[in-house]
């Protein structure tokens, strides 16, 4: 199978998945308890009188059957119209588009922090296996993973922002604002990747080619480079799949640092039961996960042609 055919078939396979995602996200919201019309009225601090309820139901199209509503929503969503927010009537798509870049920035920086910390840590830990640096590093990482994110964030805030007054406390007003939130977001992942990478480094160290290279008298740095490259694939795939998780997992960090991203948009939508926003958020996350999975599979297929043929057997 040619690479292009593989990519095209993989992308075509996404269509039913995305349709299913859209259906589930629509269904979930429909199944949530309470009358959506009443929710809209209450969220605007109004009294749900029968007249107002009837008017709102018609406005929201709730008087139409379920499938008709889904198709209406889907056709509009395909054109980029995700409805309007209950709370202020602003277009959901616009709000999501505004909140997405800060979240991508935060998740992207966190991914860089994860790589910058976990690669050296794994290298040290793997090549000095069992020695003091290995034990110290692993203990530190174990402790850092055990911190709940909000607590670690608060601690960092207090130390770097209040006590030493080195960094801004909240919001996205200057580039330095990015430092603490991205570290907080990255913390629980650093340990995971260090352990993942350390494991594959140790595994690669035991392989025959290392012994062969040693006997051939190759330079240590060259051997190290080969070990590293061979062990990188697993952890990179892991990191790739974690990117959507990082994007979806910014809730706590965004609230703590008053970061104007998607997580906060969704949290406030949940508190206000702003259903169109929650629905769009579920849809977006579903799409992100599906896309990243497809992307990582294509990357893996590029790197290893055996992967392409797997489906045929």
């Amino acid at each position, binding site marked *: 199978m040619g690479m292009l055919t593989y990519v095209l078939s993989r992308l075509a396979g996404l269509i039913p998945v995305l349709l299913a995602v859209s259906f589930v996200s629509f269904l979930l919201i429909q199944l949530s*308890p*309470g009358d959506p019309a*009443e*929710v809209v009225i*209450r*969220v*605007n*601090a*109004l*009294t*749900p*009188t029968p*007249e*107002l309820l009837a*008017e709102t139901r018609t406005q929201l199209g709730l008087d139409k059957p379920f499938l008709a509503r889904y198709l209406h929503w889907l056709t509009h969503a395909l054109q980029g119209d995700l409805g309007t927010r209950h*709370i*202020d*009537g*602003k277009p959901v798509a616009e*709000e999501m588009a*505004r909140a997405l870049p800060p979240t991508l920035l935060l998740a992207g920086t966190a991914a860089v922090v994860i790589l910058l910390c976990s690669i050296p840590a794994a290298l040290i830990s793997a090549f000095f296996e069992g020695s003091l640096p290995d034990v110290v590093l692993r203990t530190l990482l174990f402790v850092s993973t055990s911190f709940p994110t*909000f607590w670690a964030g*608060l601690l960092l*805030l*207090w130390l770097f*922002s*209040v006590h*030493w*007054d*080195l*960094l*801004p*406390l*909240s*919001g*996205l007003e200057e580039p*330095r604002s990015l430092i603490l939130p991205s570290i907080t977001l990255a913390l629980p992942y650093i340990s995971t990747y260090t352990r993942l990478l350390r494991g594959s480094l140790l595994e690669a160290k035991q392989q025959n080619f290392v012994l062969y290279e040693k006997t051939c008298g190759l330079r240590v740095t060259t051997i190290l480079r080969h070990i590293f490259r061979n062990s990188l694939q697993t952890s990179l795939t892991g990191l790739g799949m974690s990117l959507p998780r990082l994007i979806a997992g910014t809730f706590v960090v965004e*609230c*703590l*640092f*008053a970061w*104007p991203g998607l997580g*906060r*948009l969704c*949290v*406030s939508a949940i*508190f206000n*039961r702003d259903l169109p926003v929650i629905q769009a958020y579920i849809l977006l996350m579903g799409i992100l996960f599906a896309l990243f999975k497809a992307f990582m599979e294509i990357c893996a297929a590029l790197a290893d042609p055996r992967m392409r043929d797997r489906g045929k057997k």
Partner: protein
Amino acid sequence: MRRRNGLWALAVMVMLLATLAGCGNDEESRSAAGGRSELVYASTKDIRDINPHLYGGEMAAQGMVFEPLVINTDTGVSPWLAESWDISDDGRVYTFHLRKGVRFSDGEPFNAEAVKMNMDAIMANRIRHAWLDMINEIERNEVVDEHTYRLILKRPYYPTLIELGLLRPFRFISPRCFVDGQTRNGVSGLVGTGPWILAEHKDNQYALFTANPDYWGEKPRVHAVRWKVMPDHQSIILALQKGEIDLIFGADGDMLNLDTFAALKREGTFQTAISRPVASRAILLNAHQPFTREREVRLALQYAVNKRGIAEGVLNDSETVADTLMASSVQYCDIPLEKRSYDPARAAALLDAAGWKRERDGWRYKNGEKAAVRLYYNANNAQERTISEYIQADLKKIGVEMRIIGEEKQTFLDRQKTGDFELQYSLSWGTPYDPQSYLSSWRIPAHGDYQAQTGMERKAWLDEEITRLMTEPDEARRRAMYRDILTYVHDEGVYIPLTYSRTKAVYARRLKGVEFGLSQYEIPFEKMHF
């Protein structure tokens, strides 16, 4: 080789530290330069859409930009955009003499025409103001001359002036902001006559209000107020400690929980202030449920709850114990009512007399039915949970089992509507809504109060009396009607008054002039200064 790498690492670290330290110095010099002219207020909520004729925005922000004809003060209703008014003998016609020379901050004159345009827009959206009786009492309104405006009512609705002075909806937005002559579907700008101008709003980040240079009244003493949105309470406290914000202000634990308030007060680094009682916190006893249907049982529960314990133990003594649903300081509510203090022995005796006998397992039973109640609260409110646990322990002492159920807000509200509860939290709206708007809401079936009162023998009379009361022109008769209504509700024991809540403020020492408005929903920024 190894040594060279070490040097590199050292150099990178030094550079990093220098950068960070340099940044810190920048920050210091910025705050040290000159006096502060911008007040930073942190709130967990964004101002959202502050269209004064709708209910989606933060009331405190609406009050900064938009002004009413009259305002509610400690001493009653006072002139504001109307300098004076006349009321016809039959109480139906209100003629307002408007203040001259007032302009909206976009330059539009504030005159009778603008008032009428605003009032018409509000009335065109009548369906959304159903909670406000006054809306249904307006017959028509007219422009008499440029500075005289007349409001004609169908009946002599007595709280007219009070309701005209509320934070919404009877406030005035520039005619230029109307869309197709209306405000109900959104406005093209947010321009008022108030002391502040909304200069910038970044959704869910901050709103910047600058002082209105042409304000007709006393001008604000700081140049700007930055309304900063910080969803996390702990971050807000850290920001205050760091000096990034100047003020935290709020009621009912939405901005400050009471433990934090007490801790900050003890610590003494910041100034703290607490308002006089503004609203009533109570537990609603549903007279429409099997166990709480009996009046003796409801009275027993009144004596069983240790309110002082709650005020001291849970609320850190920041709220005063309530003996009656409405504080005696509330207008028309200074009524001699029997005080029901904590008396578990009396509670037990009342239950015994009602036939609820204590069995060996410690609980009470009558005809094989166990004395058990459910108390529902909004799960987002941690304070209500703690109070519930306190009450649970109190009821256990008299042999009544209580289950505490925290529910998501909408489910909690749905439950109010269906009346499927024995006990539920109730918080009055506070001055100036108390007592008239609060009592008025008792007649709406979607409210928990209505459902809880349904089991009372004279509920129909109560609703009719409240309706009559609103249009009773004679002050003495009105007072007597309030007395009858509140006495009846008190005698029936459908509310366990707990405490009178207060608004709290914590602010930096440099900030002066922090005061409380009459309503818990307003923040008098214009009086604050450094």
